[in-house]
């Protein structure tokens, strides 16, 4: 099966070069993806992060081959996923952002339809078992909870034992327990060698699962790398509240930036241990109790917020409208 493509272990499974996607044309058109480059290696778990309307789903759909790009190239397992759909689809599994299963079929019946559409499908029971839905097999899809529907969607994506798995916000709408179960499952699949590309809103999801990640904003990849690379150089943060009257001014904290809002103080530092030591020593000497004291290392969340707001200032020309409002076609208007 792999004779036609140069897929030695470690080779890139997904290659995206200068990808563009326009919706519509002229004044009503919208440029949702503006020159994205990505490479995902075999067995790697890659997370695509971004604010709403950043272009994550638009990019995913092009990599999945659901639409042809307006510019640039996509290669999945060495093939063009849109034009050479027949070569790619049997080897990948896709989970969209929203279901797409008829409400009046049961979970097991839905599985049977998909098994008929999937080469080398696992038994339906096994797929439902994987996502913890075996006990709900005879329940109609419309009676499943939102989280259960997400898991059914995941089960269908896993039906063909795909080499590459695309997950568009897989844990949205799941309760914490179900989310942990899905994370466990995704980690297991990755351990078995499945390549995974996922989009998510949850930064801790990317932090938990991803080997590498990219943060998108305004249709572009703003930063990419491992979690450590992305947060490298980002400041740690100390927050606390001063009592009403201290009678002394704050100490001079080196390598730190202090902002105060009333009694609430936030310190950003590149040397957390030293700054914290200075601060605590000062408080101890003056007998000051620091209320609601909180100190944390740089996190992906802070990096993400900083990058998103910085990028927003740098690229005011990028319209913030979400892609879906622009996803109209000019023809066949039924309104």
């Amino acid at each position: 099966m792999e004779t036609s493509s140069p897929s030695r272990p470690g080779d890139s499974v997904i290659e995206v070069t200068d990808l563009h996607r326009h919706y519509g044309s002229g004044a009503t058109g919208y440029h949702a993806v503006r020159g994205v480059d990505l490479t995902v290696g075999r067995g790697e778990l890659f997370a695509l992060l971004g604010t709403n309307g950043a272009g994550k789903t638009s990019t995913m759909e092009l990599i999945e081959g659901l639409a042809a790009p307006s510019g640039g190239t996509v290669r999945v397992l060495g093939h063009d996923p849109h034009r050479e759909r027949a070569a790619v689809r049997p080897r990948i599994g896709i989970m969209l952002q929203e279901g797409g299963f008829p409400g009046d079929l049961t979970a097991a019946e839905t599985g049977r339809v998909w098994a008929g559409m999937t080469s080398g499908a696992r038994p339906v029971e096994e797929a439902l078992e994987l996502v913890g839905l075996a006990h709900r097999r005879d329940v109609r899809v419309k009676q499943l909870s939102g989280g259960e529907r997400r898991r059914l969607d995941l089960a269908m994506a896993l039906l063909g034992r795909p080499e590459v798995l695309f997950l568009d916000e897989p844990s949205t709408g799941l309760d914490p327990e179900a989310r942990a179960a899905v994370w466990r499952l995704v980690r297991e699949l990755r351990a078995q060698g499945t390549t995974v590309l996922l989009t998510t809103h949850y930064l801790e999801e990317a932090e938990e699962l991803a080997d590498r990640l990219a943060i998108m904003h305004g249709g572009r990849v703003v930063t990419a790398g491992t979690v450590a690379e992305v947060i490298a150089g980002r400041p740690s943060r100390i927050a606390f509240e001063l009592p009403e009257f201290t009678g002394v001014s704050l100490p001079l904290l080196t390598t730190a930036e202090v902002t105060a809002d009333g009694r609430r103080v936030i310190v950003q530092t590149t040397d957390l241990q030293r700054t914290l030591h200075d601060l605590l020593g000062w408080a101890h000497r003056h007998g000051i109790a620091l209320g609601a004291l909180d100190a944390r290392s740089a996190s992906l969340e802070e990096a993400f917020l900083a990058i998103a707001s910085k990028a927003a200032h740098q690229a005011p020309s990028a319209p913030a409208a979400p892609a879906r409002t622009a996803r109209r076609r000019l023809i066949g208007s039924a309104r």
Partner: protein
Amino acid sequence: MTTAATATTGPQGTVTGPRSTTARRLLALGRAEATLLLRNRTALFTALLLPLLLLLTLRSTLAQQAEGNPGLDVDSLLVHGSVGMMLGFVVYYNLTAAYVARRGELVLKRLRTGEARDIEIMLGTAVPSLALGLLMAAVIGTVGSVGLHLTVPVNPLLMLVGLVLVLATMIALAALSSAFTRTVESAGITTLPVMLIIQLGSGLFIPLEVMPAQVADVCRLLPTTPAFQLIRVGWFGTDGSAAATGFAGSWGTAGPHLVTGAIWLGLTVWGAVRYFRWEPRR
């Protein structure tokens, strides 16, 4: 991967299904769609009972027209008209609603993420509508011709060509109509123009030979008329414009209908490909 037709056991003791083929995909989709039709009372009622009610109207309309046209073969027209209307309701109307419903539930979009090709998704969804329509048409056709002592079809091949043309044109028209239909509820309105063309303009409710000549000429050019007339010519050897002929002569009578029918099939398929929507407008 295995190409065997049954499930096999893989190296790690894992069970792996057969390769997905066009036939398996059509079967899987058709089966799901049939289950959905049986579970949807409204759709089932529209597909089964409504056309039967219309048949009663058809009989009295034709009997009335026969009073002014002594030569009209009411029995033949009744069976032909019934078969045609059955197909119109069960295939065209029902399928339009099915496409709209599956699009609204994002089922069509989800199916496109799998191995099925676009045409397979469209035909798979149509399987139960086609099967039900053909079954009902066969029952009415057989019971009608035996009960009313109709002639044996003059040219069965031509009937088959007509039938395939009717079904293909109706699937394309259903796909096209679904593009202009937002909800299943509004399908009743958006399908009205085509339903009127099928019933009144294709020589089913009102035979073409009863119409004024100019009106009949226009009706002969409507999308579904040629296909229905091919069935009539194949069955009775005439489309009402001339005396009945035999097997050889029926090809001559069918000629113009074959040409216009093929043109309409091309146009409707082009329109369906151009305008069909795989996901709802947001």
